[in-house]
């Protein structure tokens, strides 16, 4: 039997297929764990968020509109669960944690070239505060309000930082 696609698995989950649900879990739980772990240092909390995410998937699989990547939809659910978990604990997520003093390897340049072109360098030149806002809104797909809650700053500040980041990036490319 050929492997079912993610979209087919979701359709089966809507019909209450537990086997499909388990397959979906084993396909997507690992990268979700890793991505959560980069945003939350507490493994127990990551496990909890992972569980909440898939329980939500089981209960609201019919809400998937069938467009785009299933993985992106899963992340959209997951990041919001993570946000809820942070709110319940009154904690604020650390802005993107970065190992200090890592030299940028040639290979990383290549990767960034593939994924973003010159954008990688431009992003790297942004201040950590601006980059955190870009990460939360553009890459993690949060709304201004959610990003503000995540980073512990008012939504208005998210907006102004986003505007500054956009201006700086535009400058980089015009130059």
């Amino acid at each position, binding site marked *: 039997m050929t492997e079912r696609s993610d979209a087919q698995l979701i359709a089966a989950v809507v019909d209450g297929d537990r086997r499909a649900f388990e397959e979906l879990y084993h*396909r997507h739980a690992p990268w979700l764990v890793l991505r959560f772990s980069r945003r939350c240092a507490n493994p127990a909390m990551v496990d909890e968020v992972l569980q909440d995410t898939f329980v939500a998937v089981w209960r609201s699989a019919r809400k998937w509109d069938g467009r785009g990547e299933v*993985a992106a939809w899963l992340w959209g659910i997951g990041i919001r669960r993570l946000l809820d978990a942070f709110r319940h604990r009154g904690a604020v997520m650390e802005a993107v944690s970065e190992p200090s003093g890592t030299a940028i390897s040639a290979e990383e340049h290549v990767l960034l070239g*593939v994924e973003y072109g010159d954008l990688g360098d431009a992003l790297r030149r942004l201040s950590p505060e601006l980059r955190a806002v870009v990460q939360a809104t553009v890459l993690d797909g949060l709304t201004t309000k959610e990003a503000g809650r995540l980073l512990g700053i008012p939504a208005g500040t998210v907006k102004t930082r986003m505007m500054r980041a956009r201006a700086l990036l535009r400058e980089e490319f015009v130059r």
Partner: protein
Amino acid sequence: MTTAWHLDQDLVRRYAAGATDGVLAASVEAHVVACGECRRRLAPAVDRGRLGTVWAGIADTVDTPRAGGFERLLHLVGIRPDTARLLAATPSLRASWLGAVAAVLAFAAFAAGSGPHGQLLFLTVAPLAPVAGVALAFGRAGDPTYEMAVATPYSAFRLLMVRTVAVLATTIAIAVTAAVVMAGPGWFAVAWLLPALALTATTLALAERVEPVYAAAGLSIGWLTVALTAWRATAVPALFGPAAQLAFLAVAMLACVEVVRRRDRLAYLIVGGAS
């Protein structure tokens, strides 16, 4: 997405260890969302046992029936989960039952607006709602958790009290609302409370001899007969006068004393449904 590029072993290891800088990690994440192959490559970086434990938790949660709206409301007001489940399983607290009670009382209240006869009708009908509610909260016929209630190591008397008080509180609240909404003399809104209590307590006290449903039915018919007779005999209903109220109070207290005195046997019979 059909990029030929994929994460290599080294990058997988560094990303999993959190040793990539923010921009590179963002780049990896953007790629992984769109690339099934790289999701597979990341999988070995996460402990299988950990994923298994979380899966067990998910399966557990998905299999547990969700608490209904009523049960969640009870949680919110601080009622213990086990008691909340008991109340939620009480048949005469269900929406359909409460809706029916509200409808009957609304009609009676409407009739009361039409004059003294209507008011008498309301006073006669209102006490029947709590009695029927309490009777239907127990026994083989109405209780979906009957088998469980018999087998559960839970104080039967506590179950009896919890359900009775809950049913009385809700039906009486509905009836009082109906009474207050309509026009009538001041004593009107509460005159039926003591008859209701007397009927309910007697139903429970009789459980040693008669099943609650039959006791409630019998007492209701008796009540209606008395009420109609009194209704015909006097223009001002003596049935709701001071002397009668005192009599109802006495009956209610006697029945309550009886219930408490024989609580263990009665609770066993009522909750377990005398066979």
